[in-house]
């Protein structure tokens, strides 16, 4: 035994535990678990937060056995491409078994964060009744529940601090879920119901806000009228984060004047979002808030035209995060570049989803942003066109990208000036941005871009590919080169069996691989599944006409494989075959 180990073993476990308390990052905690048995035991018994990136990689019993005292659970369900309708509705990702197991085993759950999972009202009710210390529920892109489930949460979670509903499909029974918060509930810190479609009782909302003096974050849905917003803001001038659902009024009415006055007093609002319904002529009342804003999300507000957007943004000098629609135009992005010198994250979403070509941003806007915002490290950019020259310039200007996602509205569009593939442009990005962790590519792309990615993207963890590449070589460059790759998702690209089977061990180092509309065959998937028992190789077969299993040489339409400790899942629907 070395000296270091002797010294460390001398410390009682409580000391080790105290030291480990300072380790907040999961990676650090995972690392210390590997040092020796006693560290493993101390760490596992003291871990409070558990993160599970794929709910089917483990089961609740295994998690509880290893971490008996955790209080916070994060679970992710469906694969990312489910966001874009590529995964059928009943694929899976149910939270019910998790809640049942946690309740049965006496876990003292305080926080639950779910993404792309199916959550039923029954699950929410069980959750609300099983954990007396439950404090925080965050649901992102989930489905399967209604406002009845929310009513259970409101009624039963006595110490609820956070109810955060982001972009969920919720069945709104237009009931009185909000009125179910008892008068004794004063603990709310964060309430986000922007994604709900129905009305809430305005008086109940006002009373709730008035008694929750610690409320910092409030995001309303579009059914909350302006008068109610005004009354709420009078009660809660301490808000940091405000989501305004509906901002429609005649600027000459009295309620508007009152609102204008109260907004001037909201000095602590740092984050603003919403504006699903908006009268642009009312926007000047927001100007006083702009000076302090660090985060602004107007990506659900197509009603605000470029001119009004510019008038707003020009006042937001401290902005660090901006989510916007492409209605802002290249000119508007130039204003952002000139004004928002602290900008770190930019997302430009398409306003015209039918791709008719009225999109208003091009490579010029991106170049302007890269030149004007030196702190930029994360971008999602939907654009009409792109050039290699622009991407090369962006790479030079911004070597600090951690996330770079480019989406051309025509997925196979070449360089707008030279008509060449966009390989060199993306090549410049991966070469320059040494810390790049997430990349999405689009436009006309050959195997060459993947050669660059494999060569330079050493820190890359997630890669999204669509309509790109010429041959298996492309995929091979990535699999061989990107040592830290965790998630790879590919659609409509000519990668086939040779690439899939070249390094089967690689997939155990990754969380998951998605391939749809590629060239892999059923036989190759079977081979892979046979060789790698600790992978689930799922084939999603939506072809109803097919009788029995396809022949080995048939192409597979959708394949999703992931590493797992617990074998094939038992809740797979009939159209999902685990090989």
């Amino acid at each position: 035994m070395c000296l270091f180990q002797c010294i460390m073993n001398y410390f009682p476990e409580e000391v080790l535990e105290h030291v480990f308390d300072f380790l907040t990052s999961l990676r650090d905690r995972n690392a210390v678990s590997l040092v020796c048995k006693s560290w493993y035991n101390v760490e596992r018994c003291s871990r409070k937060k558990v993160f599970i990136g794929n709910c089917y990689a483990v089961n609740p019993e295994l998690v509880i056995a290893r971490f008996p005292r955790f209080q916070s659970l994060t679970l992710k369900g469906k694969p990312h491409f489910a966001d874009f309708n590529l995964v059928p509705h009943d694929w899976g990702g149910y939270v019910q078994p998790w809640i049942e197991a946690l309740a049965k085993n006496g876990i003292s759950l305080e926080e639950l964060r779910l993404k792309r999972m199916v959550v039923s009202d029954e699950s929410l009710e069980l959750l609300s009744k099983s954990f007396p210390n439950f404090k925080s529920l965050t649901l992102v892109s989930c489905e399967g529940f209604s406002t009845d489930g929310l009513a259970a949460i409101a009624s039963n979670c006595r110490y609820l601090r956070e109810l955060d509903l982001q972009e969920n499909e919720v069945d709104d029974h237009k009931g009185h879920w909000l009125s179910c918060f008892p008068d004794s509930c004063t603990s709310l810190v964060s309430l986000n119901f922007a994604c709900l479609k129905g009305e809430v009782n305005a008086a109940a909302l006002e009373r709730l806000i008035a008694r929750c003096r610690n409320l910092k974050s409030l995001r309303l849905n579009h059914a909350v009228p302006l008068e109610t917003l005004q009354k709420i803001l009078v009660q809660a001038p301490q808000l940091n984060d405000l989501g305004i659902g509906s901002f429609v009024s005649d600027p000459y009415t009295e309620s508007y004047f009152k609102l204008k006055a109260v907004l001037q007093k909201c000095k602590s609002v740092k984050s603003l979002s919403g504006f699903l319904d908006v009268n642009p002529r009312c926007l000047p009342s927001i100007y006083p808030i702009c000076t302090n804003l660090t985060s602004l999300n107007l990506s659900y507000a197509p009603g605000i035209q470029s001119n009004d957007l510019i008038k707003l943004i020009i006042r937001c000098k401290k902005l660090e995060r901006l989510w916007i629609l492409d209605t802002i135009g290249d000119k508007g992005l130039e204003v952002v570049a000139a004004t928002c010198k602290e900008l770190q994250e930019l997302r430009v979403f398409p306003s015209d989803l039918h791709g008719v070509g009225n999109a208003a941003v091009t490579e010029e806007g991106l170049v302007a942003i890269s030149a004007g915002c030196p702190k930029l490290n994360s971008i999602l950019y939907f654009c009409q066109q792109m050039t290699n020259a622009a991407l090369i310039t962006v790479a030079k200007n911004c070597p600090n990208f951690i996330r770079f996602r480019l989406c051309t509205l025509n997925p196979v569009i070449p360089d707008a000036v030279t008509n060449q593939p966009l390989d060199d442009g993306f090549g410049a990005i991966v070469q320059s941005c040494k810390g790049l962790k997430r990349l999405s590519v689009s436009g006309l792309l050959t195997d060459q871009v993947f050669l660059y990615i494999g060569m330079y993207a050493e820190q890359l963890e997630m890669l999204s590919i669509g309509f790109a590449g010429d041959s298996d070589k492309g995929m091979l460059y990535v699999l061989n080169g990107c040592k830290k790759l965790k998630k790879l998702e590919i659609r409509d690209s000519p990668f086939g069996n040779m690439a899939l089977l070249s390094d089967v061990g690689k997939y155990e180092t990754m969380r998951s691989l998605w391939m749809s509309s590629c060239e892999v065959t059923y036989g190759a998937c079977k081979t892979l599944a046979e060789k790698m028992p600790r992978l689930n190789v799922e084939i999603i077969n939506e072809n109803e006409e097919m009788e029995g299993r396809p022949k080995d040489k048939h192409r597979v339409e959708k394949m999703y494989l992931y590493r797992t400790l617990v074998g094939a899942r038992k809740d797979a629907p009939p159209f999902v075959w685990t090989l």
Partner: protein
Amino acid sequence: METVYENGLNLKATELRLGLPGTDNESQTQTSSPCVKNNNKRSSSEMDTEKQESVSPPPKTQVVGWPPVRSYRKNVLQQQQNNPESDGSGMFVKVSMDGAPYLRKIDLKFYKNYFDLLKALENMFKCNIGVYSEREGYNGSEFVPTYEDKDGDWMLVGDVPWDMFTTSCKRLRIMKGSEAKGLGCNL
């Protein structure tokens, strides 16, 4: 796409395809938008002469899941586009008055009923519109409010329920009473 590549590989064997498995389609030319799984794709610059009747390229149909935008976001934007009242730009319509040197614009969204609208118009143009009656329209008024509806017809303001009016009104014209024969007056 073949014209772009510099290497001499046989690309046909591994070329990018956007069709159903088992079908054998020509690849898209790079500048036209991709069609969704459509067996009858043709590159728009290489039409067969015999198919010249259908000259225009296929409509820009959607590729499933492209652009990659979350369904939630798509649904919200869709609803806002279907529901013009909520897109925030208001229901602005032009208002002309016979004899006035220029037109005005008003936002129909901010008026709750015909009474508010007509009062506002009277104030804006300093004219006298009077009171509507179903039988005789604005009989006797100096000025008569009319509007052009979605079908392009000129209608008398006041006949249909308010909500129906606001959704079908494209522009307003305040006619001189003397010219308004046949629109309800003196019938």
